[in-house]
């Protein structure tokens, strides 16, 4: 248990540093940035304390808000993702989630891919809708949601392959 806590604390700090120093400066095609820091939420142990998980996700989001001057946008997106993670898990993994045998940070198969895709899409949708917050920019919002989801998904898969935590 203690081991898991230290691992997640390390992951929390490491992913923030990675996001701020590298991924916020990518600006692919002018404005597309990936947000792989949400891997912290996606890879968080399933059987852990739910309240602590919500608090940690909120803290993660508010830290990103400080760095990006977005005041609350990232915090909201992280929080909602964390709260709905069990639901997404239930839909994508089906029975194996009920029996608590799901391992997320393993080789990518269809179920894990779907889990990542749905979570990242949910996160991007909330993030960009709140950040732009205007119907006149609806096309911009859609373009950003789709492009950012694809880029974040690719980078998340690469990172999972590279570090393979919990092993």
């Amino acid at each position, binding site marked *: 248990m203690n081991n898991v806590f230290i691992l997640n604390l390390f992951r929390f700090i490491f992913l923030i540093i990675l996001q701020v120093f590298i991924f916020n400066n990518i600006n692919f095609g*002018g404005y597309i940035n990936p947000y792989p820091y949400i891997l912290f939420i996606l890879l968080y142990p399933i059987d852990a304390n739910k309240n602590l998980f919500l608090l940690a996700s909120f803290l993660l989001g508010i830290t990103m808000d400080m760095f990006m001057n977005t005041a609350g946008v990232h915090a909201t997106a992280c929080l909602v993702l964390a709260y709905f993670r069990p639901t997404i898990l239930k839909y994508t993994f089906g029975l194996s989630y009920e029996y608590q045998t799901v391992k997320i940070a393993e080789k990518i198969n269809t179920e894990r891919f779907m889990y990542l895709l749905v979570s990242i899409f949910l996160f991007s949708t909330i993030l960009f809708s709140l950040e732009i917050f205007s119907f006149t920019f609806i096309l911009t919002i859609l373009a950003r949601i789709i492009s950012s989801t694809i880029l974040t998904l690719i980078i998340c898969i690469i990172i999972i392959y590279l570090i393979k935590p919990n092993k």
Partner: protein
Amino acid sequence: MQQILNFILKNSNKLLFLLLLCISLILTIQSHSYHRSKVVNSANFMTGGAYQQISNIRDYFNLKNQNEQLILENTYLKNSLYNTTNLSLKNIEFEQLKITYTDTLFNVTKANVINNSYNKPNNYLTINKGSKQKIEPDMGVVNSLGIVGIVEKTSNNYATVQSILNVKSEINAKIKNSNHFGSLTWNAKNVGYVQLIDVPRLAQITKGDTIVTGGRSTIFPENIPIGRIEKVYLDTDTNNFTISVRLFNDMTNLGNVYVIDNLNKAEIKALEKETYKDE
């Protein structure tokens, strides 16, 4: 009592979620309303320090570019100094010189941009000077090529700047050598262009004319360059011109900037407040 406790314990996850959601949504909505001070921003000790570190490294890759820009500015300043027709001006004390040129006194501080964003609709910069160096909200920020933005919030050693590439930004600007003015806004589409809206139809507009800051705000001095006229449209709703302005500044590449403090701002503001109160 027992039942209430049980209820809270049973639904603690849901309640905690709702509580945190409320906090974050309030923060979000606050940030979207005009000119509300923000709680969460990058002008604090932790994020400011981190951005300073990144900027220290990145500045090395930019040195040549920044040097060229500074030399250009020096050349321009030397030119205007040597070509001053009134030779006696050169012998006047520096303090007096400032008064001779303009009626308003401005205090200029140099600062470095340590974080710059331009890929969002609401963009902010972070600079490495703060309230310790007498930087206050609502001061203008310019560099040698043109205007950059307005100081939004300060901490001890850092300040955040609302970039002109921000859909909330609205700066008074005019066409050079005329007094027709409009508001400078941004439509969040292209980082190289801003829009000058509400220009009266009487104005003589030629493609390629220079747009400069107007003298109607207490933030910027008059005649600071902004950009060149690229395209002119007629707004069908208001029957005024909307001008697409190509910026002189490359907003994606900012290094040294100057923060301008209008020393008479308090006096002007107080006078205006008094006038409105009388009505």
